């Protein structure tokens, strides 16, 4: 399919207007609020009206100028009102193709197509904000790697025999209730509240405060718990909406992920693009035996803080093996035993987590000795975390793969293929050299310049083993 330059669906104009408005909302909002009560309101309204009109005209023109086409192996995009831009993205450089359907998209049977390339430079990516769904699928088919092989096979079994794994609603609720998003929502809630606070008349505020004072402690506690439960349920709802109908399918050389109740998303991850596979067990989920599976790719969900791409939101740790066997056999050898760091490394781990609490302890001791309990609790937690990290840290070497387990708060198992490790570093400070320890850092490619898997204070002999494994000069037997 090689087609003539096309425009986006006209709804794209609406999306463009909404997008720009979203960025302007604070400015406009501030002006509107400031102008309330003044006689100037009519002028402001007029001004905003004309800005809106200009915006809409601009968006229409921008839509008119935006054209895309597929030329040979490349996606070509022309855009720009005054400065004309033409961009070609080669099929070979595409990291992932996402189809996202928001609520408006679904009403009109449209989809957004996001094409990610490697690196953090977003301007090198392409995004088609609204095309018809069939068109979106056609584009994705067209830009797939090794299409000819796929076509031949697809005609036989037509997506029927591809292994697929879904998330059950029950699991999803578990995922939501252990997501730890209560904290996040709580923070958001307080931010929102401090914004709204300004608009609440002082009188009402005082009255509520007085009423609270007259109530017994039990009732206040009850209200607080009610609020927490409410936020918790909100968190569960958030997870269910985001990951509802989560489904991951293996299609030949690709992982195909669909998810979302309101906003539907389809992601295609070519296996060749996967830089590493990881298992994350957060502090809440680990004791319950649940984990999250993710992969590192270059490109992908850029707005996602840790820049990982989730391939399964929640899974029992015992089920990981069968999951990998069916969907990702390339990474199925997740080791069960790890070479851990030596005992003499423990003090380093402890110092790292105790450093801040101890400083806090000293400061509180001097200035606020009434509250000394707080830093003491922090110190205990810090020591515990240090021990947990020390206890978790370890590695395992196979012919073609290095696995490192580490922990920030949650336990993180990262499986790296030899061919995907970009560089390897060994670090030793003075004490390390005396104690025969070393820190090993292996770097991979992901969204933002690189992800580094760091194994701290491993025995120097083990560090040498890892680097021998990595070195291509042949002190090892693989390849």
């Amino acid at each position, binding site marked *: 399919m090689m087609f003539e330059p096309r425009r986006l669906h006209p709804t794209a104009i609406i999306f463009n207007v909404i997008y720009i408005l979203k960025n302007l909302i604070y400015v406009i909002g501030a002006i509107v609020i400031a102008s309330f009560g003044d006689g100037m309101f009519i002028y402001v309204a007029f001004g905003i009206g004309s800005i809106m009109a200009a915006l809409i005209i601009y968006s229409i023109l921008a839509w008119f100028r935006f054209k895309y086409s597929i030329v040979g192996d490349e996606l070509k995009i022309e855009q720009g009102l005054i400065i004309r831009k033409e961009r070609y993205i080669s099929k*070979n450089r595409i990291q992932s193709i996402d189809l996202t359907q928001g609520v408006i998209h679904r009403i009109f049977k449209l989809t957004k197509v996001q094409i990610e390339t*490697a690196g953090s430079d977003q301007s090198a990516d392409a995004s088609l904000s609204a095309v018809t769904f069939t068109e979106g699928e056609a584009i994705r088919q067209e830009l797939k790697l090794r299409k000819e092989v796929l076509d031949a096979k697809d005609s036989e079994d037509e997506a029927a025999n591809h292994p697929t794994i879904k998330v059950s609603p029950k699991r999803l609720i578990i995922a939501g209730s252990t997501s730890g998003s209560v904290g996040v929502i709580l923070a958001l809630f307080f931010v929102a509240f401090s914004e709204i606070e300004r608009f609440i008349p002082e009188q009402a505020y005082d009255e509520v405060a007085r009423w609270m004072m007259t109530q017994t402690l039990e009732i206040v506690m009850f209200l607080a718990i009610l609020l927490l439960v409410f936020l918790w349920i909100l968190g569960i709802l958030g997870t269910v909406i985001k990951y509802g109908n989560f489904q991951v399918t293996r299609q030949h050389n690709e992982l195909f992920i669909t998810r979302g109740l309101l906003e539907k998303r389809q992601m295609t991850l070519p296996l*060749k693009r996967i830089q590493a596979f990881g298992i994350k067990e957060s502090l809440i989920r680990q004791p319950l035996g649940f984990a999250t599976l993710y992969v590192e790719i*270059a490109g992908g969900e850029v707005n996602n803080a840790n820049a990982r791409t989730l391939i399964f939101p929640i899974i029992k740790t015992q089920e990981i093996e069968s999951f990998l066997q069916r969907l990702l056999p390339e990474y199925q050898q997740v080791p069960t035993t790890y070479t851990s760091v030596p005992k003499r490394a423990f003090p380093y781990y402890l110092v790292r987590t105790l450093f801040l609490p101890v400083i806090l302890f000293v400061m509180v001791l001097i200035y606020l000795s009434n509250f000394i309990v707080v830093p003491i609790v922090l110190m205990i937690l810090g020591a515990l975390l240090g021990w947990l990290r020390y206890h978790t840290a370890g590695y395992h070497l196979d012919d073609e793969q290095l696995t490192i387990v580490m922990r920030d708060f949650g336990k993180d198992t990262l499986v790296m293929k030899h*061919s*995907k*490790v*970009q*560089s*390897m*570093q*060994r*670090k*030793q*400070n*003075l004490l390390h*050299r005396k104690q025969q320890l070393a820190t090993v850092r292996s*770097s*991979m*490619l*992901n969204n933002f*310049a*690189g*992800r580094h898997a760091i194994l701290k204070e491993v025995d120097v002999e083990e*560090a*040498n083993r890892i*680097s*021998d494994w*990595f*070195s*291509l*000069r042949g002190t090892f037997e693989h390849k």
Partner: protein
Amino acid sequence: MREPPRLKIAQDAIKAWKLSAALLMIIPWLMVVATFIAGKYLNLTIWFGVITIVLTIVLTYLSIFLIPKVRWRCWRYEVFDQEIYIQYGILVVSRTLVPMIRVQHVDTKQGPILKRYQLAGLTVSTAATTHEIPALPEEEAAKLRDQISELARVDEDDV
């Protein structure tokens, strides 16, 4: 990574580093002068001035006379057909392995100070990291750059 890399960087690097450290030390010495002037107008004790002078002298010795030499001694590199091996760091010694097939591009660069001593720095970038060999003789750097870019020329579509 049992053995350190064999090659040392150009000995003139010490001179270049000394020169740039000396230029940088102008700032602390200006601050010393400023302390004396301020001390005179604000009637502070002479000890402020003495302390800043002593500190600045120690700093000058360290950064101009000691650190460049030690740093030079710690810098090692070696370029194999399959990979680049670099060691650097005085207190924290780092050794890095960069496979040739992962090298994305290689640059040489030269500021005015390095130029004065006919030196050039070499930067090797992978998709995820950047590595530097700071001071090599000009021709050596150019030769190495061409050699690495030749060795790194592998048709790889993984990234």
